[in-house]
């Protein structure tokens, strides 16, 4: 029942996020930008909480519900990165990306029931999904930064951005790895396997490997490969983000996975 108010909450939350972006472009004080961004994220958090109470189960069961968390973590990560870096384009890009996922939820709503299938009634369910979605949000911000860094001509700015991308990728990949490990522990408890090369698992590993390669190449450029251009690892960020999208919902549409995965959202 709570879902019918989603559009209202989404408009309110997006409104505050847009206001924060405009203030950032106008060069208004950082405090006011952060306050409006925080109000936008807070409104979205309130909706998630009310929706959780309404469905009486953790809201991670459908694709639309994971999009809710993605939007919230994206707004949150946007606030944190803007607070530390102060680039005025950060709120705009995070709001745009969050807006895309909010719109998807408005245009293609799921059927929300209180029912949760037996295998999802596990202590591993919430931590597994939260760590994945948090990683997706951080790596999403990393992707936006990489896009900006690839096209900017200012070398100093690019250097600063790459350092931030490194930090975001380290934490994001850490959470992705944690999500995979928690999923493996859960799978062992549910089916007796840690790993089965299910298409979704394969794409999660591909995503992890892309980001691990990024970290490895950045490390190499500091130690044994100083001539390596920074543009190559940045392109890997873009590839990693594409793989992440395939892992999250792309496997639903991938011919190689159709009908084979037990992890696909219904």
């Amino acid at each position, binding site marked *: 029942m709570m879902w019918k108010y989603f559009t209202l909450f989404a408009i309110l939350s997006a409104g505050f996020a847009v206001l924060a972006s405009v203030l950032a472009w106008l060069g208004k004080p950082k405090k006011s930008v952060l306050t409006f961004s925080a109000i936008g994220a807070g409104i979205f958090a309130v909706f998630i909480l009310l929706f959780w109470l309404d469905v009486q189960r953790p809201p991670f069961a459908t694709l639309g519900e994971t999009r809710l968390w993605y939007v919230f973590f994206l707004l949150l990560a946007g606030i944190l990165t803007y607070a530390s870096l102060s680039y005025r384009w950060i709120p705009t890009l995070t709001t745009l990306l969050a807006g895309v996922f909010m719109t998807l939820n408005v245009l293609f709503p799921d059927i929300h029931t209180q029912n949760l299938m037996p295998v999802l*009634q596990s202590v591993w369910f919430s931590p597994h999904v939260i760590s994945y979605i948090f990683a997706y949000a951080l790596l999403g911000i990393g992707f936006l930064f990489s896009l900006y860094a690839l096209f900017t001509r200012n070398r100093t700015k690019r250097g600063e951005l790459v350092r931030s991308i490194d930090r975001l990728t380290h934490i994001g990949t850490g959470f992705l790895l944690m999500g995979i490990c928690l999923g493996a522990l859960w799978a062992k408890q549910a089916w007796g396997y840690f790993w089965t090369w299910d298409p979704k698992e394969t794409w999660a590993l591909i995503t992890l490997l892309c980001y*691990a390669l990024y970290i490895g190449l950045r490390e190499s450029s500091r130690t044994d490969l100083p001539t390596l251009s920074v543009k190559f690892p940045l392109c890997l960020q873009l590839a990693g983000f594409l793989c992440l999208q395939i892992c999250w919902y792309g496997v639903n549409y991938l011919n190689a996975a159709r009908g084979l995965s037990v992890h696909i959202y219904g």
Partner: protein
Amino acid sequence: MTSSKTSFLKRFYSPFGLCLCLFVVLLACLVQGLIRQEEVPFGEDFLSRIGLRSFKDSAFMLSALLLLLVCGGMFCVHRFIHRTRCFSNLIYAGIWLTVFSLLAGSACLKRYNMTLWKGYARWQVESPDERGGVKELPFALQLMDFRIDYHAPTLFMVDTRTGLPLPERHPQTLNVNAKQVEAYRAGKADAQEQTILGHKVRVLEYLPLAAIQEDSLGGYFCVPAPIAGNSPAVEVEITDPDGSPHREWICAGSKIQIPLFVRTDTNQALCMAKPQVKRYNATLQVYSLGEGRGRLEGQSRIDSVGANRPLRVGRYRVYLKSYKEDYGFWDPYVSFEVVKDPLEPVTYTGFALIFVGLVGHILQNSLRRRKSAAQPKTEQP
């Protein structure tokens, strides 16, 4: 060792060497992710003939993972020697241990199928592959009880020509609230009510397991019948857009029961979705066998198996594998899977190292950052 040999070896444990290994594994995973991995009759498909449809068992995949293990192992040892106070070493060591145990574990993991039915004890299990045959376990299992609980059903309008829920992109559903129906029956609350495509629907009664009966006028009604395989049913009062109310029974149907639905229009019907399983549970009597196989002379205990709750018996784990929820008494068999994974503790150790490493790494980094922020900045000349 000469310096040229050292520099050659260094390539394997350097970050760049590890990157090359990761790239090879990434390629192998991409093949698996982009090409449908399923058995196709030999000779019918080109990709299957060259082994790309069962790539996880291919020599390339195995070699890539072995290469990763060798280079990753050397990288870990090198880091443990040269960067002693670094939590990220634990992450690398954990990943290595996990990959190693999963690879080695897939070779020594044993999985067996066991089919049980109420009242009978069995200790023989069948291997899933054709060559495996039958094995005798050091314990016997007897199925005492098997129970499935369902979520309250959902009603929705379907297009009778296509079978799709309506409206097409935003289907309207009514999730039956069992508590509210109970309160309504006791006269403590109003009936659950919702409008679906202009038809006001009030839920008057909900029977979790019902049998359908025919009245003297040729109509159908439902009565409570708690027998496995029976479908849930609800009695609803439907008020059409023209204002005329009528009472009907709706039932999802099962393999032993016909469904009941209400036609609201020439091309529309109010139906019940197949009920979703809430929980299932098998109660088992476990007998540990003595020296003489087939004689239940050891100790026994009663335990249960359900979703996410495997049963541990010695070094074996018993999982509830499959059940036929709507066949009822036509299929009383319940399938279990008995798994023996000798390397399970090693994999858990790997995961523990990864978790400790991740938490330690984050804390260590934030501490380092705070320290460097606290240090006064020296001015550049």
